[in-house]
């Protein structure tokens, strides 16, 4: 077969345009709204394109393998089987890599100019996932009749990439096996190595299954060996990711800290936040002082890292964002409970207290849109908020300290929501 004919009759080539359109569409929809200025986020979000490149790679590989099977070419060729298949797969590999490149190029615009560079280990896992699904396509193409293999391949990729991530019968961690969902870490997080490892292990099993189908001359042996390899690899992947929830992100480590002598506050920033240091640090100090002036006991070290230094106050901040709004939102975030009960019986959730405390934090921190939020809460919460804001600063902090522990529990609104008992005249 001539090179031109090989390309023109390749299924992947015909699927290339829809694939690129879908990759661009998805990246425009939510990829480009991810965290800016952090290579890790840009890389993991770009890796999500594997759901399309993987589908095309699998279908292309199945198509080529079923053509080779139909022609019985591998049985009569004097050349290496690997070489014959590699030549047949060239258009598929090029199209899949093109899609991958388009996705990475689009999302690299989020991080251009940021310190460091693309997360090469994530790209490596992404390419391994692509190789794995190509191997799976070869496996199906060589072992099943052509009319069956393509359809099973398409249905299989739907299940592998989409249904595992959506169906309640699949555990939340099952989506990480395909390598298409590596999380959307903020600057304080990195993908959980277990999710990456599980994707790598699963991909290896799928690839080896493809190699079994290619290299073993007996179809029955290839089928048994391939299925065993897939079960072994996917099973191992399941064991690796079982402890994870739906968000495979762990805390990033290695942050640098600077002590600000005059204000006795230590601020730790990631390299991605350094360009904004001059705007961020005064804002952090100002917000820290505003809350401590209200009697809220905050650690003297404010860190952009989640877990270091030990005992510090974690402030989630975003690179290339407005310093005032990102710091204010960060303080509000850490002063609210990090986890709420999954569900509470009716009348057993302190909703009014929750709204009033959040509104007070937003007003104190002067977050963006805090006035609109004040207008959106219930009349009872609004009355409590207005009463709190009339209190002296330290009494406001006391009101927060009394009501804050209730927020993470299933309990009705406490009597302490009404701050009148903290008013100076109530004391006298």
């Amino acid at each position, binding site marked *: 077969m001539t090179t031109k004919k090989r390309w023109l009759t390749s299924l992947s080539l015909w699927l290339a345009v*829809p694939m690129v*359109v*879908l990759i661009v*569409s*998805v990246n*425009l*929809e939510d990829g480009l709204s991810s965290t800016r200025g952090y290579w890790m986020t840009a890389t993991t979000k770009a890796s999500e394109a594997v759901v*399309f490149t993987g589908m095309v790679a699998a279908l292309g590989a199945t198509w080529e393998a*079923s053509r080779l099977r139909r022609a019985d070419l591998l049985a009569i060729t004097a050349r290496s089987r690997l070489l014959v298949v590699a030549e047949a797969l060239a258009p598929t590999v090029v199209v899949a890599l093109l899609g991958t490149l388009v996705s990475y190029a689009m999302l690299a615009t989020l991080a251009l100019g940021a310190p460091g560079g693309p997360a090469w280990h994530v790209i490596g896992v992404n390419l391994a996932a692509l190789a794995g699904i190509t191997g799976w396509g070869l496996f199906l193409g060589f072992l099943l*009749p*052509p*009319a*069956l*293999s*393509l*359809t*099973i391949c*398409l*249905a299989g990729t*739907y*299940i592998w990439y*989409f*249904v595992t*991530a*959506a*169906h*309640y*019968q699949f555990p939340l961690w099952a989506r990480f096996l395909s390598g298409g969902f590596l999380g959307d870490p903020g600057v304080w997080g990195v993908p959980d190595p277990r999710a990456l490892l599980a994707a790598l292990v699963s991909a290896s099993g799928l690839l080896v299954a493809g190699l079994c189908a290619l290299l073993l001359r007996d179809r029955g042996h290839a089928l048994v060996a391939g299925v065993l390899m897939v079960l072994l690899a996917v099973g191992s992947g399941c064991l690796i990711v079982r402890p994870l929830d739906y968000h495979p992100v762990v805390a990033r480590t290695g942050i640098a800290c600077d002590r600000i002598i005059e204000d006795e506050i230590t601020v730790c920033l990631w390299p991605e936040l350094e360009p904004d240091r001059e705007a961020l640090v005064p804002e952090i100090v100002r917000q820290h002082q505003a809350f401590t002036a209200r009697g809220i006991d905050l650690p003297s070290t404010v860190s952009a890292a989640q877990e270091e230094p030990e005992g510090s106050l974690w402030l989630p901040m975003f690179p290339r964002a407005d310093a005032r709004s990102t710091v204010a939102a960060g303080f509000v975030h850490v002063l609210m409970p990090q986890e709420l009960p999954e569900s509470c019986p009716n009348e057993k959730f302190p909703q009014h207290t929750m709204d009033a405390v959040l509104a007070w934090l937003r007003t104190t921190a002067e977050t963006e849109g805090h006035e609109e939020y004040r207008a959106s809460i219930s009349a009872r919460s609004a009355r409590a908020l207005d009463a709190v804001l009339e209190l002296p600063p330290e009494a406001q902090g006391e009101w927060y300290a009394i009501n804050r522990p209730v927020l993470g529990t299933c309990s009705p609104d406490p009597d302490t929501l009404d701050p009148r008992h903290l008013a100076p005249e109530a004391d006298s």
Partner: protein
Amino acid sequence: MRWWLRARLVLPGLVLLAAAWAAGLASADQLFAFPTVFGPRAHVPVALLAATAGLLLTTYGLDRSRTPVELTANRPVLLWDAALVAGTALAAVTAGLTACFSGIPEGLMMARTTVAGLGVYLVARAVVRTDLAGLAPMGMLTANIVLWDVQAFPVAGPWLLAAPGSAVSWWVSVLVLVLGLGCLLSRFPTRN
């Protein structure tokens, strides 16, 4: 007849179809997100994917026709094939109606997808190679999803993703099935 039943994989095809329907109806409230060319992702019932996947062995069985023995047989093989397709479609509609009256309206969508899927397969096998024709039902579902403008039509999408009782989409599905049966019975030249 026994030869035809085995050649067309009638029993395995019906078993797979029934299993897929059971899985689809059990997952009636489950949706999966799939990107569209218009931007926002479409949330597609898993049941539709199950209904399409359930046709796999039926279409594969139909693909195993045109052997020399069959082409020279004086049995009404084409009529049997047409009866298999029509019977499968009728069974799907009956099951869909039953599910709908049992409070699972997605059953009607599954039935419509089955009817359209069979029709699209028969039309496609008259035009393209049989292995590509096997892709037609799932390809048709994929095309419906990616062409769904979720922002403009948030509740229901085109054709297979329309509301379960949409008369237009039912008519189109039945028309495609009739067209497909026409291609099958007219011995439309098929490509191997």
